[in-house]
């Protein structure tokens, strides 16, 4: 215990910023070795860039035999906050392993954490120049022109960061925002606005194809490379679904771990603040595109738990094509929740804007694609909102002031480099994440309490004479959620609820089946089974499934 505290304190002092792959790896190893009875760390595969994809397992006893939750972060490489949150949750869980709710969680459940699913991309945080990168380490011809990595970003103002360039030009379609002079927005002809600036990412058009920085180092954005709703031939999606080793490693682990009941992803998608609704038209076809009715209602229940923890004003971040979160539900058949974890709080206490479609949170920060972001106009503009919060918090280093430079592609024009610093919008200073990790740990513990709980109850044996016995019992789910997602009953790899009879010597079944499989048991649902057994002595009955736990009971026949 003393050791644990020391390790935790030591690291808490050291860490004031997001970490490199090496720092993170040693942090995980230290955490596991300091808590060897509860935690272990192993590599489930290598990234394209040959970095380990770490899996942290937290559980008392054999994790594989317990119902489990899987937490995945860092699929979107630009999202460092999720990675940090996931690791802090693990640290808090272990630091509080003796306390009631956490102790029970670790006793009865296994928690799997993959803190950095896309380590190649995340490493750009410590690389030069720093830019928000989504793609792994595959050498890939992103713009499919036959030239490899021929048009990367260039750090034109020499500040080590990749931001944006605005160029005064008659063909420009951007203007300065009325709400914040630092921010550029699209000119709206309907409002009588005429464009003044061309807005591009920081760099030059090396291959003179009219596109800026569309093919730098890096290959596939692995959160576009999963199988559900896989987007073909778009920037970052790769050659085909699951082409990337990161995707295969994570999928192999998920599919190969039938005990995983639900998945929580930290990333720029949110289905927790507002649960997806049931839509008959989305489940009526051969290919499902929405949750089943039963699952939608379970998701609503989990969403209520999430919102009860005071995680307010989340921006709407719809699911995206080919991501892990939807694949985990639609293809692997598990409950799947996703949240950015942290977002810039609204500064004015105003009406709820959750339902409005915000511009994607990474849109105006240069990412691999290099497209100038289409920022929403007006006060709801994501950038304006973020800067307002950052000003209130007196954060420095979140904005690079516009400064004139010489741009070789615009020799006689006024060109300026500036904009929101890479990573800033999705990733607050690390000290802001303490609260995020606390709240999400509460969420996980709360979810653990609601998870299915299979029991064998009301066991009766009746002797019918001449060595013939009738056994009757009920298998019940006393949890608050079904034994597994309803969609799991369609998925071949999800294990059904099984009741199995193990006969003793000289016993035989006269009526009833040795193995009974059935679909998911809803919360509170019970099923009764009866057997006629010839013979005497002990026999064992086992019931359950990997996502809900397996229990057994012994019966003695007279």
């Amino acid at each position: 215990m003393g050791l644990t505290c020391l390790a935790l304190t030591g690291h808490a002092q050291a860490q004031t910023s997001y970490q490199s792959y090496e720092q993170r790896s040693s942090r995980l190893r230290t955490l596991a070795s300091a808590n060897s009875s509860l935690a272990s760390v192993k590599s489930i595969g290598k990234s394209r860039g040959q970095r380990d994809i770490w899996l942290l397992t937290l559980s008392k006893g054999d994790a594989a035999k317990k119902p489990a939750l899987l937490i995945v972060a860092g699929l979107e490489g630009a999202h460092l906050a999720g990675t940090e949150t996931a690791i802090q949750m693990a640290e808090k869980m272990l630091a509080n392993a003796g306390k009631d709710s956490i102790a029970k969680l670790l006793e009865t459940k296994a928690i799997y954490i993959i803190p950095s699913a896309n380590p190649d991309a995340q490493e750009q945080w410590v690389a030069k120049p720093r830019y928000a990168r989504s793609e792994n380490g595959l050498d890939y011809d992103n713009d499919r022109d036959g030239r490899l990595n021929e048009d990367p970003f260039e750090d034109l103002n020499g500040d080590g960061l990749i931001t944006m360039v605005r160029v005064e030009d008659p063909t420009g379609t951007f203007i300065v925002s009325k709400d914040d002079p630092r921010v550029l927005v699209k000119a709206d002809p309907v409002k009588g606005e005429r464009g003044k600036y061309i807005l591009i990412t920081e760099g030059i058009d090396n291959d003179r194809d009219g596109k800026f920085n569309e093919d730098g180092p890096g290959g596939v954005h692995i959160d576009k490379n999963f199988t559900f709703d896989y987007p073909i031939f778009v920037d970052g999606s790769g050659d085909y679904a699951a082409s990337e080793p990161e995707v295969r490693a994570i999928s192999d682990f998920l599919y190969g771990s039938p005990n995983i009941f639900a998945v929580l992803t930290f990333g720029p998608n949110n289905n927790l603040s507002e649960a997806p609704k049931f839509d008959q038209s989305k489940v009526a076809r051969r290919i499902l595109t929405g949750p089943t009715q039963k699952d939608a209602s379970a998701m609503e229940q989990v969403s209520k738990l999430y919102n009860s923890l005071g995680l307010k004003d989340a921006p709407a971040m719809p699911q995206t094509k080919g991501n892990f979160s939807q694949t985990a539900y639609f293809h692997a058949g598990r409950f799947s929740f996703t949240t950015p974890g942290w977002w810039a709080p609204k500064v004015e206490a105003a009406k709820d804007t959750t339902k409005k479609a915000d511009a994607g949170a990474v849109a105006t920060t240069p990412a691999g694609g290099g497209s100038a972001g289409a920022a929403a106009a007006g006060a709801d503009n994501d950038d304006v909102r973020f800067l307002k919060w950052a000003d209130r918090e007196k954060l420095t280093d979140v904005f690079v002031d516009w400064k004139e430079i010489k741009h070789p592609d615009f020799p006689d024009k006024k060109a300026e480099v500036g904009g929101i610093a890479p990573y800033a919008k999705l990733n607050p200073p690390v000290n802001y994440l303490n609260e995020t990790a606390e709240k999400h740990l509460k969420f996980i513990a709360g979810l653990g309490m609601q998870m299915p709980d299979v029991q064998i109850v009301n066991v009766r044996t009746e002797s019918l004479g001449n060595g013939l016995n009738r056994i009757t019992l009920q298998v019940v789910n006393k949890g608050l959620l079904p034994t597994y997602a309803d969609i799991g009953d369609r998925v071949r790899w999800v294990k059904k609820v099984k009741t199995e009879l193990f006969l003793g010597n000289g016993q035989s079944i006269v009526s009833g089946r040795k193995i009974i499989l059935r679909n998911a048991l809803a919360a509170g649902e019970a099923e009764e089974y009866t057997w006629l057994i010839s013979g005497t002595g002990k026999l064992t009955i086992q019931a359950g499934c990997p996502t809900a736990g397996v229990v057994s009971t012994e019966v003695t026949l007279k």
Partner: protein
Amino acid sequence: MLKKIFSAALLCIGVQMAAFSQTDPDLTGMRALGTPANPKVKWAWNYYMDYAGIMKLSQELVKAYPNLVKIENIGKSTQGRDMIVLAITDYKKGNADRKPGFWIDGGIHANELQGTQFAMYTAWYLAESFGKVEFITEMLQDRIFYILPTLSPDAREQFLFKPNTANSSRSGLVALDDDGDGYVDEDGYDDLDGDGEITMMRRKSPTGRWKEDPNYPARMIPAKADEPGEYELLGIEGIDNDGDGRVNEDLPGTYDPNRDWGWGWQPDYVQNGAFYYPGTLIETRNVKNFIYNHRNIAGAQSYHNFGGMFLRGPGAEEDQGFYTQSDVAVYDLIGKQGEKMIPGYNYYVLWKDLYTVYGGEIDWLALARGIFTFSNEINTSYRLFNKKSTEGRFQNDEFNEFDKYLLFGDAYVKWKPYKHPQYGDIEIGGSKKNNVRNTPGFMLEEEGHRNMAFTLLHAYHMPKIEIAEIKSKKLPGGLTEVTATIINTRAIPTHSSHDVRYKIERPDYVTLKNAQVISGMIVDDADLNLTREQKFNPQTIEVPNIPGTLTGTGGGSNYAVKVRWIVRGSADKYTVEVDSMKGGVISKTE
């Protein structure tokens, strides 16, 4: 002086050859046309070879024809067998892996034996016919064939050597718990009578609704509505091995490697047979890696059985839009010719004429890689008596009639009594595993040859690029305008229109060598001087596609690609090089 010696030498060789010709069967009436009469590698083509046979024949071909046949190991199967590709071309001419490549695979469904056989026949035939049949000689000078005899080598051995039905051992042999009881492959078929075949079980019973066909006792037919039956049918030969009240419910395999490809992939509940994600299986991953490493592959054939079809994609209705009119025109040309080449075979569209397939190999080849791909469903009941049956695929009794008169009863196991642990006194008998699907021995070589001929037609139509003309014209100011005309004399373009739309393969590069290029452009219309300038790197003009003879652009009147450079100074001759991933590399000085 030199000349004289040379002709004398030639004369000498001529004399020798003439003397030799009297003993070379291929130069006598002993040669049955179209078939080597005296092959260096002797092989019988009327039985199905096993894995050892594939390896032996492959190695013998390499030994006999080291300049034509090479073996590449593309990885191991699940059970550790080497997966080999035979790379066949005239290695003395050109850069082998830059020639337009043709991919052939067989036996992805391991119970469909012919594909492997025909893939090997093609390898053998190409090697043995090079230098003897001009068409083949040119084919190997211009093209390279990559032949994977079996994509599922483990399951092929399982099918050949273990008791099976016609439909079992279709997939690989990754161990799976089919019935969800927590036990793996614990209740497969059982060869109860030990005859090496898995057939059917029947039981004499007053409550049964089946009877024997009076003409063919191996065949069971339903009793008429107004008559009693004699037998119950109890399903496929086997027992309830695990005592769960079900028979044969957890077999080896039971997934489908042909649902494991990265186009339109869907999970098992949508597409039966799918695994976790496309490329879960090592066998398909090995092939994908090979194909990505051989971007010269422009045509492909994936052999299957049964039904006599030349299938093209898409496998799913929603993908129809990806097969554009101009790409379909290529398939139509080859597919319709095929209908004449193999009587009884039909040119079909997979989803429309057969069934829906998500995540199938041919869609992946065609739509993820832009490769023109056919899949032949080998063998059809038409070939039994050379006429179309009016009955359905598995209903018609022509197979029994054919068995009686041409196979002399070899296709069926006679009913034999057996004491079954669950069913009591039963009889076991019926169709053997090689019946119906797999072509009988005496027809095998013919069907192989016809399928190969279709595939060679397909390979013939891969791009063949020529620089038709290089013209130069003096411009004022000491400049010269150089215009090159490039054509592709075959039906398949260097990029399918789907490929052009999604930029699957890089453009074709047309380079003017050794000249001071100051501007370059694509010429859309030479007569009207309509051009598009390429500002970046004008020495090498990037052409999105070099269409083939079937192109419809410009009303089909002109299928040439023209590119133009403005160069400083002038020269007598200019050298132009065309570098196309799927069309090969050529150059010309004129």
